Each structure stands twice: as structure tokens, then as C-alpha cells.
């Protein structure tokens, strides 16, 4: 599903150049659950952003579901993002002016889904995430665990083929964290491909496979046993 070849990413600021990714290559199969691990600043988020079509690499190629998407227009990226990719962030990133239901509904709006169908889908996914009773609350009124469940709900509401999660449990206590990991596992079992960045060996155990990064380079790819 994802094919990453010799990816390079360099950040240039006025004084320094940082090589965030250096010749990174790996593949992710359809239906896989992959964890990316590594110390802070090794380039995990950078990699995930490129996979999520939020950022462009400076070198190498990236193939998404059979098509080369290394250098496509911003319009096409937005298109691919909204149809195929769901995002979950460490800091939840919910829109504070929108209610739970409205946040979850948002991707469907951008997809141009009709109002009745939107309502149905939102209801279904909220029920599944067990957050239905909070549908009319605003994000600030929810606990961290609940917020992350909303974020997951929003990521999956349009049934994307790929979910990208950047330290989804990083701001949660262990029980809330486990809950989110269970959710992701369920989604994966239902067929969704998942790529997750994490610091936690515990979380990584939910994945089929772990890719380890160090200073922008893949140092180890091990399949979970």
C-alpha cells in the first residue's frame, strides 16, 4: 500500500540545515499495523507527515496505493487526504468552536456527503466510540481520553484506508491510552491500514511490525512475533 524509497527531508533555517530524514526506505502492506519508534527528534513526525501528504520530501519517492504521489499538486493531496487518510494526533487537535458531533462531521462535509447520510455516519461512529452521549459538548468539556476518542472517530468517519497516528497516547494516562490502542486494533482488524508513531514499547506491541529510526535513518525493521 505504501512504498517509501530513499526518502530525504532537509529543514533549512537561516543558520542551520537539519537532515530530518536520510535515505529512508520501507513498505507497508495493505491491512498492516506498523509502529514507528525512535528517540525524540529522530524524524518520526516528519516521516508521518510525508506519508500523510502534509509535507513533501526533498528526495526519494513515495508511492501510495500504486500511484507515485511524491510530487503532486496541493489540490490532489487535499483530495487524497480527505478520501483515504485519517489522522490522529498526540494533542487531539479538535476544533474548539465545534461540538463533538460537528468535529466528527467535518471530513464528511469536505467530502461533499449529503446531510442525512452525514448524520447517520456520525451517529454510527460516535456510538462505536462510545461518545454518543457527549455529542453536543465542546472539546474543552471532555477529558483527554474522550477527546482522543472523538479524534479517532473523526479520523475513521469516512472509512479511510489508512490511519496515521502520531503518538496517539502521548497525552493520555495508561487506561485511556489502552482504550485508544484497543480502538485502533479493532479498526485494523476491520481492514484499515495503520501507521503509528510512538515512544511506548507497550503501545508498539499492538502493532504487527516496528520500524526504528535514529537520526533520520531506519536502523531496524522487525516483525512482531
Amino acid at each position, binding site marked *: 500500500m505504501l512504498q517509501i524509497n530513499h526518502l530525504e527531508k532537509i529543514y533549512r533555517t537561516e543558520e542551520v540545515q537539519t537532515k530530518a530524514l536520510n535515505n529512508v526506505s520501507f513498505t507497508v502492506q495493505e491491512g498492516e499495523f506498523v509502529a514507528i519508534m525512535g528517540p525524540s527528534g529522530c524524524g518520526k*513526525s516528519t516521516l508521518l*507527515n510525508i506519508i*500523510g501528504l*502534509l*509535507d513533501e520530501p526533498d528526495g526519494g519517492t513515495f508511492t501510495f496505493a500504486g500511484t507515485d504521489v511524491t510530487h503532486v499538486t*496541493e*489540490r490532489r493531496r*487535499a*483530495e487524497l*487526504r*480527505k*478520501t483515504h487518510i485519517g*489522522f490522529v*494526533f498526540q*494533542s487531539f*487537535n*479538535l*476544533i*474548539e*468552536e*465545534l461540538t463533538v458531533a*460537528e468535529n466528527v*462531521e*467535518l*471530513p464528511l*462535509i*469536505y*467530502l461533499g456527503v449529503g446531510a442525512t447520510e452525514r448524520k447517520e455516519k456520525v451517529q454510527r461512529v460516535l456510538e462505536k466510540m462510545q461518545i454518543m452521549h457527549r455529542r453536543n459538548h465542546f472539546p474543552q468539556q471532555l477529558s483527554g481520553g474522550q477527546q482522543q476518542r472523538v479524534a479517532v472517530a*473523526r479520523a475513521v468517519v469516512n472509512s479511510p484506508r489508512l490511519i496515521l497516528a502520531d503518538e496517539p497516547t502521548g497525552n493520555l494516562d495508561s487506561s485511556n491510552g489502552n482504550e485508544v490502542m484497543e480502538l485502533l486494533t479493532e479498526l485494523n482488524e476491520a481492514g484499515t491500514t495503520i501507521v503509528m508513531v510512538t515512544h511506548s514499547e507497550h503501545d508498539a506491541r499492538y502493532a504487527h511490525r516496528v520500524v526504528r529510526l535514529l537520526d533520520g535513518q531506519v536502523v531496524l525493521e522487525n516483525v512482531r512475533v
Partner: protein
Amino acid sequence: MLKNYLLVAYRNLLRHKGFSFINIAGLALGLTACLLIGLFVHDELQFDQFVPDGSRIYRVYTQQTTTETPESHASVSPMFATTLKQEFPEVEQTMRILMTGASLNLLQAGEKKIYVEDGLIADSTFFGIFQLPFKYGSPTGALDGTSSVVLAEEVARNFFGDVNPVGKELKINSTTVVVKGVLQSGLDKFHLKINYIIPLAAAQLPQQRMSNWGWQQFYTYVKLKPGADVRQTQAKLRDYLTQKVQPTLSENDKLTSVPYLQPLHEVHLYSSSFKYDSSVKGNITYVKALGVIAGFILLIACFNFVNLATAKSMQRAKEVGIRKTIGASQQQLMLQFLSETVLLTLVSVVLAAVLTSLLLPVLNDFTGKKMAFDLLRNPALLGLLAVLTLVVGLVAGFYPALVLSSFQPVKVLKSAVVTDGIFGRVQWLRHGLIVVQFALSVFLIVCAFVVFQQVSYLHNKDLGFNRDQIMFFPMRGENMNKQYETFKNELRQVPGVVAASIGYGFPGDQVAGDGLIVPTNGEKKEYPTTQLMVDYDYIKTLGLQLVAGRDFSKELTTDKDHAFILNETAVREFGLGTPQQALGKTVQWPVWNDKNPDSLKVGKIIGVVKDFHYKSLYDRLEPAVLQIFPGAYWKVAVKLKGTDVGSAVEGVKQVWTKFSPENPIEYRFLDDNFDEMYKAEDKLKSLLWVFTGVAIFVGCLGLFGLATYAAERRKKEIGIRKVLGADVSSIVALLSKEFMVLVVVAAVIAFPLAWLAMSRWLQDFAYRIDMPLWAFGVAGLLAAAVAFLTVSYQAIKAATANPINNMRVN
């Protein structure tokens, strides 16, 4: 989708109430100013547009060829109309209105008597030229004969109530006329003020005058046939004058002017410098200037809106990041933010519409107009507001929308340090606009102070006489004029009356000017002198002070025909030495005497009065002479005691009625006359306060936006400084410094401009204050203080925020 946008917009609005409020208020205020100015400009441009065939109607005016600068006269010889009608086949109709000056005429129907101004004396073709709508009667033949009158609706209602008065009789200055028609009300956009119209034939002017090319006493209008070329007609008219008219005139009577045909639609706005013109005048320069000002205000309002919105957008960065991550395209986000600003603009426009309808009565009062802002009955206005909303919303929203929608999710979701691209780099533009706004504020503050000072000087300066509690009225009726002596004596008997004087030439009223002959060294020199025609009580009534000699005295019979009193200026300008030395010297005056125009009144100077201001303070004091002259006993001044003025006025009225029962009394107080003179200055004063207030407010909005932006941008820096030990005051100082510099620059620009403008304005007054230097100091301090308060609000907020919060986000 739109619903979602508006929902977020609405919640954003509520969440940042204070911010939304100032942003909306600023825009609404700017829009209100624009709308009010727009209404005024529109109203001015509408003048005479309703007149049918208006594009074929022209007014004849002449430009003098002998004066230094070209001088246009609106009143011309009656022969223009005669000639145009007779000799020019392309002329469909001509019409003349007799220039009468501002005179009050007594109208009477039954028991009701009212003094009415603005009565026109016009050719019977009046309604052929101006097809004004009639309420009662018909324009055909309405001004035929010599005893017809057409009334304005308000006047008709005053005399006859709401019934049709056609056929009823009315007296104008005791001549009986018959009402032939009533005009519909709502002629407020007509360049002629009309209360009634009587036919020119009624004036029975001698034929020899009506055929005189030198008697320039008529406003003349022509209507050309459709398709006629006015330039040709004008050229032909000039040729006709030089070839056919000039040769017939004697050397002394040769024409010294060139005629012009002025389109009706230009009469109101393009005649501001015309002389002998009594039409309702506007001024195209003001109209254009106001248009520019309105545009400028709108620009500033939009700019401040953009400024604030961009500053605020830093806080929306995260939302943009999330939306983009989810798949929103830049266009969709542009659309979202544009719809937000359009919504915000809509709220402002609605608010502005409300404010406009609230303030319009004030403006109407101020301008004497009858402008309407009736949205329900004027769909065009509604459409205009819709367009305004869209245009302002899009213009003001475009930049912030562009900035916001171009945020990259990877960056904004990660850090709080967001710069807004281009706008951040064109800092000079932001700063420049702020400087302009503050320069304007400082300029206006200085002007407001100076005008305020001068106006109170005008109202309170010692005029050299006592103007309080002096009742003033013109005499009316033959009986009163004949028995003026008894009339005056009876007035004096009224309890509460201190003194009474009859004459012509009271302060604040019209005065006559004439030559006074002063024999010096065997030579007779004539000086232009103000002639104050007085009686034995004038000096006493007005409380004038004699600096030498004595007042007129009834006991000395020579005082009646052989005595003059001069003012100090006259003594000085005539070179008569000190007031004491002037006494006893002889002066001569060519008496106003129809039968014997060459007779001289010869007399001695018996006294000198201290200078007093009988004219407004615009005019320099001139030589003035006081003399007994019963021939001009036309006006009365009655000095009342300070207590119980009401009953004294009643008493005066009773005496009046005894002497002139057929005429109602029309009195005023002398000090009102003076206050009246400075009406324009009073208006300017209040206008300046309003403008200053608005300018300061708007300037502060701009500054506030900038300060918000700066505080947002330097959040992290402030956090670090605090952690390192900086206290609140040092951070406030840090943030305020860059803005205070702007205010200083603004003041440096504004001061010389204000100085120039105000020196010019003061120049018009012969008596004026010295330029108050304190006004500049105070204006500068005020602007700085206001600016500091505005900036420090943001600065203190930023300085007192928990530094950890601001640092952690990165």
C-alpha cells in the same frame, strides 16, 4: 458547508466578544460616516433633477470683464429674456424673477397675519419653465393678471388649513390677491426657495426700466427647444450683444460683462462664488472633498479591519491546520474566512444602518436638509447596502483569508510561532497607515482646540457696548412711523424698560455706509464712513462710552442738524489728532435727500465714543459717525431691566399694538443677532468635536490591531524575558516603545499642517486669538496618552500571561 462556516464564524464571534465588538464597532462607525456623507452627497447631486425637461433649462448669468478677478453675477438685465425670446428661434420659453433681497412680507387671510419670506415675483411663464407639481389648482394661467398668487403647501395650510384655498383671497402687504394654485410640498431639492409666487405684472415696473440693459435686477431662465445646441445659442447671444446692443448704448452705459447660459443642473453646485444670487447654494468642491473623505474613511475602516483580523488569525492557525489535514483545500478555507468577514461586515452594515437612521435627524437639523434613509421604501438603498456588505467584506476579508488559508498544517500544528507572510514584511505599510491615522487625530485635536478658543472669544469678547436685554424690532405701519416720538415715549413708560432708541444702524443689524467730508488744510477729503442714524437715546440705550465731548442733547437745538459724534477709529483715520482735539472740528455730509441731492449737512464734532463692534468680529472696525437723522428712523432698540423680562416684553407688545394694530410685532434680542453671526463657527466647532472623536477612536482601533499582532508575535520572547526576570513594566515599555515612536512621527507631521490650517482660518477674523501653543502640547499628549492606553492593554495582557503557557507550545 456554508452553514458550518457560519456556525464557526458565529461561535468565534461570541468567544472573542471584546475583539469582535471593537472590530464590528470600528467598521460600523466607518460605514456610518460613509453612509451619512453618501446621503449628503447624493442629496446635493439630486438638486433640480426632478424638474421636467431640466436638461433644456438654463439660467443666464454674466461675468464681469472689468473686475480684477472674474466675478459672476446671477442677476441680469430684464432685456436678456426679452431678447432671447424675440431674436432666438431655438428658445422655447423665457422667464424672469425679480431680485428683491431677503425681505419679509406680511401675509394676511382673515384674522391670521404672518410675516413670510421667500416670496417670488416672477414672469407668468414661471410654470412653463419649471413644471412644478400642483396640489390644488392648475399651473395654466396661474400667474396671469396682476392679482394672482400661487402658494407653497405649508403656507397654504398655515392660512387655510387643509381645505382647497383656490379662489380665496389673501393680502400681501395690504394688497389683495387671489389664490390660483397650491404647490405640492417636497420642493426641498429645488434651487429656489418658494413660499409664494406673484406675477411680475403685479409689480408694475415702468417700461423704461424693463428695457434698460443696465438694470441688473433679474434672475433669468430660458428653456431651449429639444435638440438646440446651447453653446451656439450662447455664442449667438454674445454676438448679438456686441453687434446689436453695444452700439445703441451711450458711453457710460456700455455693457461690461459677458453672458453665460448655465445648465439648470449646475445652478445649485456650481454657483458658490456667484454674487447677487439668492438660490439655495451648494458647493461642488465640498461635495467632491466629502466624497474623497468618505472613500478615505472606508479605506481606513477596511484597513483596520484587515489589521485586526490578521492579528487575530494567528489564533486560528491551529484550526486551519486541522481542517487542511482532514482534507480541506485552500479554496475551501478562503471561502470559509471570506464568508466569515462578510458575516462580520453584514453585522457592521446592519449596525451602521441603525446608527445612520439614528443620526440622520441630527444631520438634517445640522444641514437644514430633509434627507431620508428609508430602507423599506427604497429597495435601491437596500441593494446598495448589500453590495457594500459584499464589497467591503470581500476586500477586507481577502488578505486575512489568504494568509490563513495558506498556513501549512505541518507547521501550525506544531508551533505557535506563526508569521503572516507578506503583511508581516510590509511593516512600513502598516506603520505608515497608523501614522496617517494618528496624524489626522492630532491635526483634528489641535483644530478643535483652536476653533473652540476662537468661538468662545467671538461670543464673549467685550464689544464696547452692553448687548444684554436689548429688545430689537423694525417699525411697521404709517401711524407708528409718523408718531415715533410718542411711540418712544410710551415705550419708555412701560415698567421694566430702561431706555429706548429709534434709528438705523444698530449693532448686529444692517448699517449704511456713505462718504463723510472732512475739510483739512483747505482741502475737502471724503472718507467712506459707517453712518449710524441715531436719536438722543442711542448712546444711553446701548451703553456706549464717550471718551471726549458729550452726547446729543435735545436742549441744544443745533444738535439736530449741526452735530456729529465720531468713533475713535474715525478720529484716528481722519487725522484729527486726539479725541479731545477733534472736538469742535467741522465735518460735512451729503444729506440723503431725494429732492436736493447736492445739499450738504454741515456740523461740528461734539463728541467721540469709544470704539464698539457694531459688525461681526470678522470685520475690522471702521470709521463711524453718529448723527440725528429722523429720515432713517426705521428700527427700535429697547433696553430692559434684568428682572422680569417677560412682563416688560408684554408691555412693549401692548404699546406696539396701540400704534400698529394691523401688523404683528417681530422682535429679537440684540445678543441673539450676534450669536447668529457665528452660527457657522458654532457648527464647525461641534462638527470638529465629532470628527475628532471618530478619528481618535478609529486611530486607536488601528493601533489596537497592530498591538495585538505584535503581542501575539512576540509571545514567546516575552515569556522568555519573564522567566529571565523581566518585570511587567519593563515588558510594557518594550512593547509600547515601537508604537509611541509612531505617535511622535504623527505629531511631527500634524503640527505644521494644523498650524497652517488654523492660521489661515484665524486670518479671516479681524479680531482673533493668538495661536494657542498649548493646543499643540495638549493634542500631542492626548494622542500619546490614548495610544499608550490602547497599546498597554495588549502589552499588559501579554506581560502578565503565564510564561510557561507561551513557551510550551513550541
